[in-house]
């Protein structure tokens, strides 16, 4: 998956776990929490969905990388680049 495709995969996950949010205005460099109503259980949902959908493991010590869309895509790129779309 290319970074743009990883971003789209994250958007699809967010659409499921934050269905009331408008994601079209999401600014990638800004923290998710500054733009969306996401709590710790929601971030665990992101981790769980990455595991279920793409078999990607995000260890607890790396949760900080899921701060914004930009940091998430950057973190996931080496983990997901071999995944076929």
């Amino acid at each position, binding site marked *: 998956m290319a970074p743009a495709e990883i971003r789209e995969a994250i958007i699809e996950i967010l659409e499921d*776990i934050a*269905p*009331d949010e408008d994601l079209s205005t999401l600014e990638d460099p800004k923290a998710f929490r500054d733009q969306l*109503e996401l709590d710790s*259980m929601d971030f*665990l*949902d992101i981790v*769980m969905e990455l*595991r*279920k959908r793409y078999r990607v493991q995000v260890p607890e010590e790396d949760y900080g990388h899921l701060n914004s869309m930009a940091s998430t895509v950057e973190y996931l790129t080496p983990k997901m680049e071999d995944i076929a779309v």
Partner: protein
Amino acid sequence: MISAGKTEQLPDHQRIVITGVGLTAPNGNSLADFRGALLAGTSGVSEYEIRYFGKTFAGVCDFDVRRHQTRKDARRGTRAGSIGAYCANETIQDSGVDWENTDKDRVGIYIGVTEHGNVETENEIFEISNFEYDTKFWSHHHNPRTVANNPAGEIAINMGITGPHYTIGAACAAGNAGLIQGAQQLRLDECDLAIAGGVSESIHTFGIFAGFASQGALATHDNAGEASRPFDMNRNGIVVAEGGCLYVLERLSDAKARHAKIYGELVGYAMNTDATDFVLPNPERQTQCIHKALNRAGLEAEQIDIVSTHATGTSMGDSLECEAIRNVFGKSPTTFINNAKSFIGHSMGAAGSLELAGNLPAFEDGVCHATINIDELDPDCALDGLVQNQPRESGKPADYILNNSFGMLGINSVVIIKRFTA
């Protein structure tokens, strides 16, 4: 009940009245719609399919979840929580309480449930079956969804209620038990307003269908609308339903002070236990429970206008309840007897409160809704006052409604509501 005898003799702050009704049933999402369906003979039972078990029948509700919950809250929570949030918001709106200025710390939530957690546990086991049963795929939502207080806690979060909240696990007596608990807490001054009743999400667990089927107690029929048929010779089991009914309960003094509409007064109740069998009811204890409620209310059987039965459509259960009813009401020719499960199936934890609600309008119109689907009355169930297939008018508003609700492990509950007269 703090003391036996007429509740009129109690001070107003010890008298408990119903001032709001919020419900969802398989044939109506408000009291008016539910009552209309009961009088029209409209069944809420439909064909239904659930994983592993396959095709069966169920009472399915179609209320608008989004009316009182965000999509996110509905996704995060449980079906029981969504039903609870809907009914709680509806009952508060119906009560006319100035909710914005209500002290939420003085509101209590008392929700009866037959079971809770099976739906979510089954879902998670199914989910990890797609991942070779690796528990790393087990959801972090499982525990908050399955704690026993979940339905009541979701209502609290949804409405910002900071007083006490809990569920009352009481098998299929739970709807009455929630109501009773709410009244007791008001009398103890633990809260000023109680949201009380019962909810059920049970149609979403295959286990309850499979369990009843293995027990020989799940209804089968060619026609969904005729599958739930208490008292009929050809009844063969239960139709499982979901639903909820929550009341606003207040002390009479508070209801009077705000000039509230009063649906009725809780003048008697009782709970007791068979202590004899896991599933088979004990009519002797049911009889005692009904007598206990009558005694506490200071009433004779002849004064009860309507008995709302628990009967679920099982061969033994219906016959044994009829034995208990005959013991108490056998010489009471003016008492009408009916059953709401024949319309909607068995809504489990919601049954007691929902079935009571369907009868409350009789305080105004004097009509006793029927028990439908009786094509050939079982002689064991041929109670004199049984209202079969068509509603009956008594010619005057009902004064007293007695509501039976019984459950597994021999838990019995009876509630008596009186038409309120100032």
